[in-house]
């Protein structure tokens, strides 16, 4: 077998493996459920809420992402509540009453979450003050670095000699 042939063989083999892996992956990529919504607005709300609500079992996934049995249940519950005509805030309260603030990917503003909401702005503000302080301090001695009249005279003198 020539070297080129060998490389082609290896490449085509890896391609087959890769395709196979893709097929396997796509088979369990996303949860399969079909819900019939009463209107398009409800559908959009369902999609938005499943993205905002977190799966209690698999902590780094939202309800839309997760395949765990609890997420399937919660999606079904969410669908039921939406079809009943419940408002978004009522649904969120329903979930929080059962699973705690934890289920919200966007935590509510309260004394516990102040640091989450305002921490970054505070850090930004502190950073800004530090930058201003550094810039101000550096600009001051600039004038002192300029040559005095005496030094200029001396420089002229030295240059003339050459």
């Amino acid at each position, binding site marked *: 077998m020539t070297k080129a042939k060998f490389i082609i063989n290896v490449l085509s083999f890896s391609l087959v493996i890769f395709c196979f892996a893709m097929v396997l992956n796509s088979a369990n990529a996303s949860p399969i459920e079909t819900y019939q919504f009463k209107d398009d607005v409800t559908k959009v709300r369902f999609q938005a809420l499943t993205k905002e609500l977190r799966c*209690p*079992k698999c*902590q780094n996934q939202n309800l839309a992402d997760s395949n765990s*049995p*609890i997420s399937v*249940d*919660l999606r079904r*519950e969410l669908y039921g509540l939406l079809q009943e005509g419940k408002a978004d805030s009522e649904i969120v309260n329903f979930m*929080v*009453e*059962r*699973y*705690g*603030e*934890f289920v919200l990917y966007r935590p509510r503003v309260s004394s516990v979450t102040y640091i989450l909401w305002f921490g970054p702005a505070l850090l930004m503000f502190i950073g800004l003050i530090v930058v201003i302080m550094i810039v101000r301090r550096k600009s001051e001695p600039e004038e002192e670095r300029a040559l005095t009249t005496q030094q200029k005279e001396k420089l002229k003198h030295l240059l003339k000699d050459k």
Partner: protein
Amino acid sequence: MNKLIRFLPLVLVLALGVVLYRGLSLNPQDMPSALVGKAMPEFSLQTLNDPDRTVTKADLKGDIVLLNVWATWCPTCKYEHPYLVDIAKDPQLKLYGLNYKDERRGALQWLAKYEDPYVFSIYDDTGSLGLDLGVFGAPETFVIDHHGIIRKRYAGAIETRVWRSEFKPLIAQIIAERKEGK
């Protein structure tokens, strides 16, 4: 002053290190239940043993009620089972089961094969009571006091060490409260 400021980043990094290091030993599954301090939710479901018998909140009798969420699909439930059998022998407690998203036949076989520690098991095949209780897996165990208030939710297997550190003190506290007439 200027010299001290030079060490500020070092201090900040060390503080961050301490915080993150502590995070390593925390259990992310250990979440406080939203229901602690609230009343046990209402329900009306069949018992596992008898499809004709419907039980409600009022049937969970006992001064200290333990409600154990279990299922045959849950390997950890099998692990904690012998401990539950032991716990059920304590006359101060009443242990009830919540058979969560399970099949009746298999669950009955399980109880026949191992031993039934429960006064009765609620049959919650759709997980509706589980949802109202904020259950997200099995096993989980709830402690309900003489006023019907949920005092604790423990997610994970009960074993001797957990029982001693997590449940015993609370049970003693509830008994003390009851004696004081609270």
